[in-house]
């Protein structure tokens, strides 16, 4: 066994799906981060308020995608209720501001904690199921929550929607997208940092262990159920924070935008970016968010192109945009 000449069987990439293990930062990731950082700083000085609104929205989706990444990408649990937690976040922070005049950092925390707590409760029940059953149970929960948003008139305004009063901190009031932008950027960066820390820590490793083999995880002393619930609760927390970020620059929310479509949009971003990597989640949110925005004027074309992108990606770039680019670059450099 001390024989080190034993050879490794050539890697066969075709055998099983491959998920990235975020252990080291590759160069592409660092380059991308540098580019994003520069763009974030320059943006407010060169663009209109409307573009900043879109930027804010993209950042919200990045946080939503990071949450989805934790539960689906890292832990391998197909939970499809993120629009519900997002909605819970919007309403809790909106109400904290509207009714009690809370400063926005506090209502953000509240939004995350409320969504996370609901997530833990739902996760405790739903995570006994696997695969398709988990997906369907969480889907049903999401739909039921949308119904609640639509019918709980006293709290959500029901079908009339809810006006959200401007976010405030002491005398400071956030009235425009330009004012909200630094706050949204800051929170996004905070959430990305948190995700990286979690992912590289023992917590992230236990999530990936559960994804790879729950029996082996158990043998390694990982309480599998608790790990799954933690991941689900965390991801609901992210969705809640994303909701409260939305509330800082939005003045109005209607339950229509809190349905399955929103969950699917986030899922699509994560998968198109590349399931299992943080770069994939962030990059997918940006790329796919921009595509949706460019196609916004023509809803029917938007849907067709959107659908075609999904289909083509699944056919020819199944591990996501960034893995695809890496593979192609590798092919070129190898000749």
């Amino acid at each position, binding site marked *: 066994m001390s024989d080190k000449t034993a050879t490794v069987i050539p890697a066969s990439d075709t055998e099983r799906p491959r998920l990235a293990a975020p252990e080291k930062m590759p160069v592409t990731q660092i380059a991308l981060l540098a580019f994003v950082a520069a763009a974030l700083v320059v943006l407010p000085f060169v663009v209109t308020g409307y573009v900043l609104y879109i930027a804010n929205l993209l950042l919200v989706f990045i946080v939503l995608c990071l949450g989805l990444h934790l539960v689906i990408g890292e832990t391998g649990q197909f939970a499809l209720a993120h629009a519900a937690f997002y909605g819970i976040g919007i309403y809790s922070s909106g109400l904290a501001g509207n009714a009690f005049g809370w400063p926005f950092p506090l209502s953000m925390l509240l939004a995350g904690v409320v969504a996370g707590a609901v997530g833990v409760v739902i996760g405790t029940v739903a995570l006994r199921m696997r695969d398709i059953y988990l997906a369907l149970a969480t889907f049903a929960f999401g739909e039921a929550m949308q119904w609640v948003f639509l019918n709980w008139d006293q709290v959500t305004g029901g079908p009339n929607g809810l006006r959200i009063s401007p976010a405030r901190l002491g005398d400071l009031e956030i009235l425009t997208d330009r004012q909200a932008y630094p706050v949204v950027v800051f929170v996004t960066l905070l959430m990305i940092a948190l995700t990286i820390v979690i992912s590289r820590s023992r917590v992230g490793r236990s999530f990936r262990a559960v994804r790879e083999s729950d029996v*082996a995880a158990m043998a390694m002393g990982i309480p599998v159920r608790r790990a799954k619930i933690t991941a689900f609760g965390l991801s609901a927390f992210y969705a809640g924070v994303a909701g409260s970020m939305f509330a800082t620059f939005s003045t109005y929310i209607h339950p229509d935008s809190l349905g399955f479509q929103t969950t699917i949009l986030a899922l699509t971003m994560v998968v198109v970016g590349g399931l299992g990597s943080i770069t994939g989640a962030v990059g997918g949110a940006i790329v796919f968010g921009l595509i949706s925005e460019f196609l916004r004027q023509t809803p029917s074309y938007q849907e067709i192109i959107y659908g075609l992108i999904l289909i083509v990606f699944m056919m020819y770039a199944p591990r996501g945009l960034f893995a695809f680019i890496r593979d192609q670059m590798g092919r070129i450099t190898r000749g």
Partner: protein
Amino acid sequence: MAEHLLEVVDLTVKFGGLTAVNKFNIAVKRGTIHALIGPNGAGKSTTFNCISRFYQPTTGRVLLDGVDVTRMPASAMAGLGVARTFQNLELFGELTVFENVMIGAHVHAGRSWVEVLSARPPGVVEHVEHLLERTSLTAYRNTVARNLDFGHQKLLELARALAIRPRLLLLDEPAAGLRNREIAALDALLTDLCRREGITILLVEHVMQLVMAISDRVTVLNFGTKISEGTPDDVRNDPSVIEAYLGQEMAHA
């Protein structure tokens, strides 16, 4: 400190109407290598899975160092110093060799926030590197586990189990599928682990070459009941054991 690190008392496992294990007893002495053998379908793996808490016995008790662990969840065993491997390899396939072993090592890392969120808790990485060295896996540190060849995958499972710093190491057919040269190396490694580090080992095994070479004691199971127990020589010469194995070969012929 009980004389026996592991005791299984009157273990019975029924699946529906089928009795897989019937009133089975075994006591594993501290610091020894104990083998559990028997023909196919004898109930070895079932017993093994009850000890590692993956199956719940119908009746009977499992005692670890005199403490009843029959109601413990499987995930609590690692913390009590019980590590196991799997018959059909259960690696974290998409993770690197290093990460696989790191996951095992986390059981003993601290519980404070800083330690939980640290990427490389102090002490843990050194321990992992040491284990990789010991199992000749250092060269494959950053290889994704599923890309290793079978022999190295088996070693990785062992390294991962050792990362728990076990008192009791449960090995489910560690030699199955290995080449003779690899079995010889495994033989040396296991003996070393037991003699030098005092790790108690219970193994389920088909490969008699390994069992007879390293075991201090052998228990033979057939149709869910113990039919023989003793030193490798005792067991080798026990007519009932020969009959059990012969009977199986006749049935297969």
